[in-house]
């Protein structure tokens, strides 16, 4: 299991853990407005991995979300700190 980001305002927190099936869970107060856009970003960056992906959004802009997803993905693939 790896994680990236923080729970601070304007940020996003991303968790990736190995799983038998692919699962994407998005939690956001702005789900109604941005839920689909957030899912699209996650999908475009992680579609090739079979894992459980949890994203908690705290009002992150798209580039912030991308940075956090990339960070989590690279850790998941074994890149060292």
């Amino acid at each position, binding site marked *: 299991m790896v994680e990236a980001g923080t729970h*601070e305002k304007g940020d996003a927190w991303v968790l990736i853990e190995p799983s038998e099936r692919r699962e994407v869970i998005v939690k956001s107060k702005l789900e109604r407005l941005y839920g689909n856009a957030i899912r699209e970003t996650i999908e475009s960056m992680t579609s090739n991995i079979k894992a459980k992906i949890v994203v908690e959004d705290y009002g992150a802009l798209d580039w912030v979300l991308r*940075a956090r997803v*990339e*960070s989590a993905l*690279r850790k998941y693939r074994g890149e060292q*700190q």
Partner: protein
Amino acid sequence: MKLRRTRLYVPGNNPHLVENVGLYEADCLILDLEDSVPIDQKFDARIMVKYALQHVDFGASEKWVRINSMDTPFWSKDLEEVIPYVQVVNVPKVESYEELDKLSEKMHEIEEKHGVEPRKIVPIIETLRGLVNAREIAKHERVVAMAWGGEDLTAELGIPKSKALILEHVRAEIVIAAKSQGKMALDTVYSNIRDEEGLFEYAKRAKYMGFDGVGVLHPNQIEIVHKAFKPDDKEIEDARKIVEAAEKAMQEGKGVIALNGRMIDKPVLERAKKILAFAEVD
């Protein structure tokens, strides 16, 4: 002329603080990967900074990143992420010319890989060894300015920073090292962000010590420092006359510049141009 009167430090792993940096109009913005980022966030921070450099509007501010010092395992990974998008690499605790050469070699490797222009370096002198070698360090071709910090230095001497008389000597040495190589000299931060009068006096003092700018920790400090570095009306008027006389001499094909019967030599003209740059008039 590029001004570096203010350089605002912004924690690199805090997107909320990074988002609006371009609005502050600092001459330089430093996304920090060093002191403001805890060890367990270094990985996330350098990726965040890579994205910020590409997506945040920096306005007219120069894009800097303060990487981790070369005695940590982080500096080369920091470079890998930021070099394609940064303008100036701010390097803490630099102690020798050789160290900068090693850094420069790594930067060159990444620049070649990404097909980007050579990036500039601003080393921060923070130790006695660094201070002793400051004049050599300033000679490095990538160095555009010299900065300094007093915490480690006073800790090495075992004296409290607030009472350290030696820091006046350190300031002078940084100015001499930088200016003797035609580089800028940048003073350290004024850490009391609520003391506006104190900051104004501090920045004025830095200016007359020979510094070209100071570090800032809060956006509210920017305008005060810019005001402190602004020349007074008489300085601006005199400078304008000198520059006009030089332009006139050039148009008339004269090799000698004269103003009110006095010859103006090159350093005087250069100083006049600098005053006008600081006055924000060309």
